[in-house]
């Protein structure tokens, strides 16, 4: 039992260390690749951006708009008792921008894009394609990891902003129709209480989450063992680990912002 637990903990430490090494190696290629005359290919960055970003727009839109709608109705239920229904507007906007939109968007992207990355790289690993890159002298971190990392790093914050907007739109729909708030007043209340720093804290989170998704899914993909079953396991692991790390780091970052009064 203790033996098993020890192995488990050592495994976690080892994996963390390897992911950190992958992180710095990827950063090395991104910032110093062109010095070695081996820059990260722009084509593949844009290809990944389209896949990770543009193709995720619709699902992010739907998830956040419904969250906005539900959030507005649930808070109105409470605020009605105090006769403060108008504050639905600011509450929806602030909770979305600071918390819900970054987290929900990254969870959706971890499920949609992270799993796809893990499955793709995992299949490449088990069908010897990664080994073929090695033998051709092509660095897999530069060729495969770096474009995905850059694409997610820039696209996830964009998706988060889109999530902010569509969430506020969801709240607006409920507020102006069923709660009978004047549309002009709704928008005014939203922006009266929503500060730029709320959006920035949300975006800071999404930058961190983007790195988590990219690194975890690439790591799991590149370390796939066995055949089809291994690819399935790698995909599951990438999603589960990304989810846990996203929520963990959400907690840490929120605490940092809260205690430093940001």
């Amino acid at each position, binding site marked *: 039992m203790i033996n098993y637990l020890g192995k488990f903990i050592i495994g976690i430490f080892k994996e963390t260390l390897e992911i950190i090494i992958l992180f710095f190696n990827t950063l090395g290629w991104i910032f110093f690749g062109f010095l070695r005359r081996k820059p990260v290919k722009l084509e593949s960055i844009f290809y990944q951006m389209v896949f990770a970003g543009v193709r995720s727009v619709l699902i992010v839109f739907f998830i956040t708009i419904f969250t906005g709608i539900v959030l507005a109705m649930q808070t109105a239920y409470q605020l009605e008792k105090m006769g403060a229904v108008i504050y639905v507007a600011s509450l929806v906007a602030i909770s979305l921008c600071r918390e819900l939109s970054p987290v929900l968007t990254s969870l959706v992207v971890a499920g949609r894009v992270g799993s796809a990355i893990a499955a793709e790289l995992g299949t490449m690993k088990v*069908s*010897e394609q990664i080994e*073929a890159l090695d033998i*051709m*002298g092509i660095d897999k971190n530069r060729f495969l990891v770096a474009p995905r990392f850059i694409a997610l790093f820039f696209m996830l914050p964009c998706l988060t902003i889109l999530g902010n907007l569509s969430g506020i739109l969801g709240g607006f729909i409920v507020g102006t129709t069923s709660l009978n708030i004047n549309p002009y007043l709704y928008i005014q209340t939203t922006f009266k209480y929503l500060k730029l720093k709320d959006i920035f804290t949300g975006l800071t989170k999404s930058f961190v989450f983007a790195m988590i998704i990219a690194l975890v899914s690439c790591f799991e993909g590149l370390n796939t063992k066995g055949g089809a079953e291994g690819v399935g396991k790698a995909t599951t692991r990438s999603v589960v680990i990304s989810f846990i790390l996203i929520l963990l780091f959400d907690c840490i970052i929120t605490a940092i912002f809260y205690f430093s009064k940001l």
Partner: protein
Amino acid sequence: MEKEVVISLKNVSKYFEGRKTIDNVSLDIYRGEIFTIMGCSGSGKSTLLRIMTGIIKPDEGSVIIKGKDITRLSYEELNETRKSFGMLFQYSALLDSLTVKENVALPLKEHTKLPDQIIDIIIKLKLSLVGLRGFENYYPSQISGGMKKRVGLARAIALDPDIVFYDEPTSGLDPVVGGVIDKLIKDLSDKLLITSVVITHDMQSVFKISDRIAMIHKGKLIEIGTPVEIKNSNNPYIQQFINGSPNGPIDFFKEDIGLTDLY
């Protein structure tokens, strides 16, 4: 004339989970020859090939390729050395996301500064060498296994390597395509003086193409010789392997299931 040694393995051993997969193997491979390594599945021949390409590091011994010990090279130096390698994989290992043309172009685009027009010409040349002109824009999933192997070969020789490794080049192919691949290997070695290292258990192709043959069993090198020497060898392991007989010193039932006590 003294033959130039291109690949030299010295006392190479490799352990996997405490089991000796490669057991003290030493051999020399000369420039321009086709050197075949044969053995049963699980005998360690694929591991040996991966040790030669630097994918797997041996636990003991050294692997000297063109005068450099690749077990001691840094990652960058190893990648530099690998530019003079080509490898044909058992399942071709073409990148699924790229077309045939892009697959062959990949090493050229990554390692040279040639303009696109010249790369195009080289691709056409390499593809016509393997008889696949006109398939440039197909994806690997759209072509047959034999065609994939030939594209893999075109990719392996794209950078005009000195050494090409073949991992079971004819397995899973029909006899005619297998014969075509054999002929390609022989042509490359004869015309371009490429050193070829072939791993196979296809007996027909072994004796057709090889200049020298090494037989490996349970990680140990049993014998090295020319095809004639191997054919006339007295070693019972080799005779059993060549004839494909189930009875002999190589006993799968005893070794694999651990039934030694019962017999």
